[in-house]
């Protein structure tokens, strides 16, 4: 055979081979997911996400999950902006504050159509609760929650023991102040080496301040029905005064906290500079991995005479599928796996999160009874009985920042509590054009 003919035949055979194998390549779907967790990271939740992705991909070789990590406070607004330009990721983790915007914008696909319609009534019942209801609108299920975040009091059991304070003895806000005083330690020069309680007031990375559960316990709420801010009512003023007095009057909280972010607070807690902090259940596993399981506990907020426990702000991440995705089925398949019975168990056991399924809670009864895992029970009980979710019928974005700024003005500028809250209301309403 002439070399030219041989070469032509070889090229033809090669081309045929490539063209036959192309469909196999073409079938592999890439699913882009935006989250705040970095699967290459080392925290328990990041390790869990990486494991869930690798297990899913092993079982579904035709689907590749590509994760893009974003700062948590910018994740949802960026997604909404990306939806506006038609270039959003296939899977999104939406923060509770912006969940209403995400649903109203039409950016989230109905998960019923993707996979929930195939579920049995038992499977649906397994998931029922406030988080399920929050993402159910007009018969459509727009997202499922992971990372149920119960934000209340984290404490150091070892410091409580040293100070002779029983965590269960903190029933009222007066008990809380007494305990915080007992837990505040000063050295011989009068320098405070440990504060009884700490929370951060920075607008950057803002968690909901203590005053919110305290005000909510009174039943007044922090929003009016039309979405306008409702901070400066008597209960709000009393709650803000209580929390700023922890610094100004009782000296059980650090004045530097006026500039602290959430992460600063966790660092102070981890370094033993604070015995109690305002903290989230989802951070407990990371703190325990640094300090030891027996060094981090969680308790419900104190109550008043009428309310057993003030309702904690619940937040979290609602995972949904982008309505404009070209790989909705594959994206839905991953969401179903990630938040299904296998994924949920992993999030609890490895990631240290509260269970999302009642069956997980039941099956992991022994796990939750282990030392240091009691916070899962506290978070589950709190979520069921003493929780508050920001409304999603209007955008609530910025309410935590507005209240933090009000707190800063009171602490740093000596502004009057009521005047500062009224200004916060006015700023919030103006920003939202309400």
């Amino acid at each position: 055979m002439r070399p030219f003919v041989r070469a032509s035949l070889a090229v033809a055979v090669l081309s045929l081979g490539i063209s036959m194998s192309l469909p196999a390549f073409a079938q592999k779907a890439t699913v882009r997911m935006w989250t705040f967790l970095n699967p290459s990271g080392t925290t328990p939740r990041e390790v869990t996400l990486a494991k869930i992705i690798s297990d899913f991909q092993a079982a579904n070789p035709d689907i590749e999950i590509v994760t893009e990590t974003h700062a948590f406070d910018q994740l949802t607004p960026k997604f909404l902006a990306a939806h506006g330009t038609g270039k959003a990721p296939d899977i999104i983790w939406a923060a509770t504050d912006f969940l209403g915007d995400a649903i109203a914008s039409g950016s989230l696909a109905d998960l019923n159509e993707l996979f929930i319609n195939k579920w049995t009534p038992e499977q649906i019942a397994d998931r029922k609760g406030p988080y399920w209801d929050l993402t159910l609108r007009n018969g459509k299920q727009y997202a499922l929650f992971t990372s149920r975040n119960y934000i209340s009091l984290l404490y150091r059991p070892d410091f409580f023991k040293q100070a002779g304070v029983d965590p269960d003895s903190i029933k009222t806000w007066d008990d809380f102040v007494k305990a915080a005083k007992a837990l505040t330690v000063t050295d011989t020069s009068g320098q405070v080496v440990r504060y009884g309680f700490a929370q951060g007031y920075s607008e950057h990375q803002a968690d909901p301040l203590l005053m919110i559960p305290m005000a909510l316990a009174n039943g007044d709420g922090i929003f009016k029905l039309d979405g306008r801010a409702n901070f400066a009512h008597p209960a709000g003023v009393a709650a803000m005064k209580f929390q700023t007095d922890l610094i100004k009057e009782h000296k059980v909280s650090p004045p530097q906290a006026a500039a602290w972010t959430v992460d600063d607070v966790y660092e102070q807690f981890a370094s033993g500079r604070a015995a109690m902090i305002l903290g989230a259940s989802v951070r407990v596993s990371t703190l325990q991995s640094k300090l030891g399981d027996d060094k981090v506990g969680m308790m419900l907020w104190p109550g008043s005479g009428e309310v057993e426990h003030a309702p904690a702000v619940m937040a979290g991440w609602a995972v949904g599928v982008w309505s404009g995705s070209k790989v909705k089925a594959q994206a839905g398949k991953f969401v179903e796996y990630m938040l299904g019975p296998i994924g949920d168990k992993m999030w609890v056991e490895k990631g240290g999160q509260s269970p999302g399924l009642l069956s997980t809670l039941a099956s992991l009864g022994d796990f939750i009874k282990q030392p240091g895992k009691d916070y899962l029970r506290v978070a589950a009980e709190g979520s069921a009985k003493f929780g508050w979710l920001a409304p999603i019928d209007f955008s609530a974005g910025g309410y935590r920042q507005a209240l933090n700024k009000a707190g800063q003005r009171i602490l740093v500028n000596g502004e009057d509590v009521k005047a500062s809250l009224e200004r916060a209301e006015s700023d919030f309403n103006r920003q939202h054009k309400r």
Partner: protein
Amino acid sequence: MHSKYAGIHYIVPAFALLTLVLFSPVFYGVWFSLFRIQYGSPTDFAGLDNFRDLLSDPTLPATLHRSAIFTAAAVSITIALSLALAIWIHRLGERRGFLVQIIVIVPWIISTVVATLLFRWVFVNDIGLAGSIARMAGLDDIQMLNNPHSAMALLVAVSVWKRIGYAVIILLAGVKGIPDDYEEAALIDGATPFQIFRRITLPLLKTPLLLVAIVLTLSNLNTVETPLVLTGGGPGDATRILPMDVFDRAFITYDLGSATALALAMFFGNVLLVLAYVRLAKWKT
């Protein structure tokens, strides 16, 4: 084609690329700002409503004022220090000059977020380095981030520290470009060192100084990472400058209409500032 238009052929590819990369977002921003934005998408045509809303915002004048103070302080201090450093480095020997140059440049090459976090950890609490030094010196705790004036001073200091390396490099190149003969001749004529600096060095550094002033002004006026990480705009609004305001409007309250309008206003402000600088430099020629 007439020879005077021949150059157009050469600049068309670069201009097209610039249009795509630099100008298209501006055009898109202008278009975007003329609509009501809901959930990230333009809905009804709003004309100049977004800009009118901006003008009626009672917090904006104070933010503008703080931005002007921050930028003016950061730029003038950076230029003064970098000019002194550039002249000093020029007079050092080659090896020592090189070492000082490296030390001065390091902050510039560090990521802004990392550099700012380093400062934050020094000042953020009473067990930071600043607090420890203060206590060793018998002073009270330093709470710079809790005081409106010291928080702004710290913001300026971080900005100066971060950007001084760039300014030194440019000004040092300018200083090295001045022939030694000029100084020698001036010395023979009996000029004092200050007169040499005032009459020879400074005028001959006009171009690099202008360049440094423009770049520093723009980078300070548009920095969001430094205030966001260092102070979060606080305490209160003490360090809230314009780019942070844009960031908050876009990512905290999700008001993309006013965020875009403010960003555009800042863009045109930047352009005007550059034109003013260039014009000012020409007048003094």
